[in-house]
């Protein structure tokens, strides 16, 4: 799954990874099913793109996250410019999350009030994030900033997830149980609100701040943020696991929708053809993933997801530190 990264890693900008250098126009014309992406202004093999969607969808169904954190690097790997990869990935994550949200809504697994608080924070965060994104792109450091964001966020989250699941597995062995409520500084904050479905009576400040952070990540990384949001809701807010996925999907849908519109307006880099191709694969893949996921235990699944997240982070870090194969890169004059 991850080996393709090493061939020409994340440090590459749109032009670094040279495509087939060989001549032979006929060979170029006949390979796969080429589809021209109107915004990325390049053609890609439709099967490769649908395949990426399928693979990411499978993982997202398996782990209950959007999978944007894998989608963006994979798109950059197939030479999609970083800006288009990030913006389109947000659009695609939204589409995939809508099907998840509908399913959870039907089962009543969405805490609407909590969702609204998270979304409010998320919208503010994404507005700021899109501005920062445009600024960084103008400075020519987009690839670096996206990569650093990925390494830091994925490294921390992956590490925490692995540690937590190891602890959970050990705890299970020792037959210990966690306390239902853990009180700490967070519960002293003002603006307390009752979140009935989450069975919580807490201040709106922590969820709003968490939402803000996720919105920022969403704009800068093209991710839904589920992989950060889900653990944050469980461990920081203390929500019951049953409503966490549905509520996080609620927030992800609205924030990625906002990011899509903001990116379309400020950078014009949302490619709907690419996003539709990805969604075809991802929606189908998510169903298989969900079926597969029901056979695994929660702790093991989280541990595996943590390992996957860590592996991506390490791979991207290596790309930042290792001497690049191409010292020069080409970009349009903005």
């Amino acid at each position: 799954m991850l080996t393709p990264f090493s061939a020409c890693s994340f440090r590459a900008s749109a032009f670094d990874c040279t495509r087939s250098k060989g001549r032979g126009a006929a060979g170029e014309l006949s390979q796969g099913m080429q589809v021209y992406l109107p915004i990325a202004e390049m053609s890609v093999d439709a099967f490769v793109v649908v395949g990426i969607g399928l693979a990411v969808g499978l993982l997202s169904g398996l782990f209950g996250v959007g999978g944007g954190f894998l989608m963006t690097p994979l798109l950059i790997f197939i030479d999609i410019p970083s800006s288009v990869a990030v913006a389109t990935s947000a659009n695609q994550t939204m589409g995939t999350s809508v099907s998840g949200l509908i399913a959870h809504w039907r089962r009543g697994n969405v805490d609407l009030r909590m969702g609204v608080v998270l979304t409010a924070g998320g919208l503010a965060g994404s507005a700021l994030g899109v501005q920062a994104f445009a600024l960084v792109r103008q400075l020519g450091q987009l690839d670096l900033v996206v990569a650093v964001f990925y390494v830091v966020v994925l490294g921390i989250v992956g590490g925490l997830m692995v540690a937590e699941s190891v602890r959970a597995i050990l705890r299970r062995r020792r037959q210990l149980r966690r306390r239902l409520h853990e009180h700490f500084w967070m519960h002293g904050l003002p603006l307390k609100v009752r979140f009935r479905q989450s069975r919580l009576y807490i201040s709106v400040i922590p969820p709003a701040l968490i939402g803000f952070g996720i919105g920022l990540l969403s704009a800068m990384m093209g991710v839904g943020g589920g992989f950060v949001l889900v653990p944050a809701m469980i461990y920081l807010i203390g929500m019951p696991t049953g409503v966490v996925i549905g509520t996080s999907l609620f927030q992800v849908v609205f924030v990625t929708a906002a990011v899509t519109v903001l990116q379309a307006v400020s950078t014009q880099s949302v490619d709907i053809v690419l996003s539709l191709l990805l969604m075809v694969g991802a929606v189908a893949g998510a169903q298989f993933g969900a079926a597969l996921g029901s056979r695994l235990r929660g702790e093991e699944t989280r541990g595996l997801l943590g390992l996957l997240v860590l592996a991506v982070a390490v791979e991207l870090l290596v790309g930042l530190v290792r001497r690049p194969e191409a010292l020069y890169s080409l970009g349009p004059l903005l």
Partner: protein
Amino acid sequence: MRACRLSARARHLWLALLVSLAPVPAAAQTLLAELSQREVAVTTGFAGAELIVFGTATGDAAGPGADIIVTLRGPNAPVVVRRKVRIAGIWLNGPSEQFEAAPSFYALASTRPVETILSAEERRRLRLGLASLPLSPRGKIEDPSFRQALIELKSGLRLYSEDPGGVRLVGDRLFSARLFLPPAVIPGPYRVEILLVRDGRVMATRDLPLTVVRSGTSAEIWRIAHDQPLAYGIAAVLLAAAAGWLGSVLFRR
């Protein structure tokens, strides 16, 4: 449109005939050429296009010993070339150079390596060949490594090329060249230039226009994305929501 082009071609042929029949002065040279297509449409299925330039050279300069050079040049597209530097163990984009007049596409095909056909001076004057392309870097101190990198990167994308054997001669006077336009070509006016060279001197030239246009759905999508970004963004959101909803309906058990 088509009729007009044909009649123009017919007129050229007529002229050529006149020239070859009449007892002409030695200076009269004729270079006739045509393209396999005058318009390249970038559609949703665009995977590059092959352009064939063909023609004939008549007159005293043509024949054995003469060379043909064909160039195809795309509209200018300003680019930035950045060099990565290592800061605190991390490789990041450092110094950069902006090239205001870099052509988005440049292809040269000739009967022999162009350096053996024309002198460096002549090539510079004619702005012929990758080594002589005027790219107008913006920086005050000219660092040739940026220019070199630009040419290498663009060559890797097949946007810049030089093909020393690319012009094929059939007999003495008929020639043809194949030029490949990769999927990354940008729309706009392109120009094909054909030169007839003998003894280091350009004897005749011919210019032919080529247009690369976005066409069909992809052109519409690009236009809306840039002209009405807000509407485009909202449409992208609605489309994603519809696709997600459809997925949940299709896979509901």
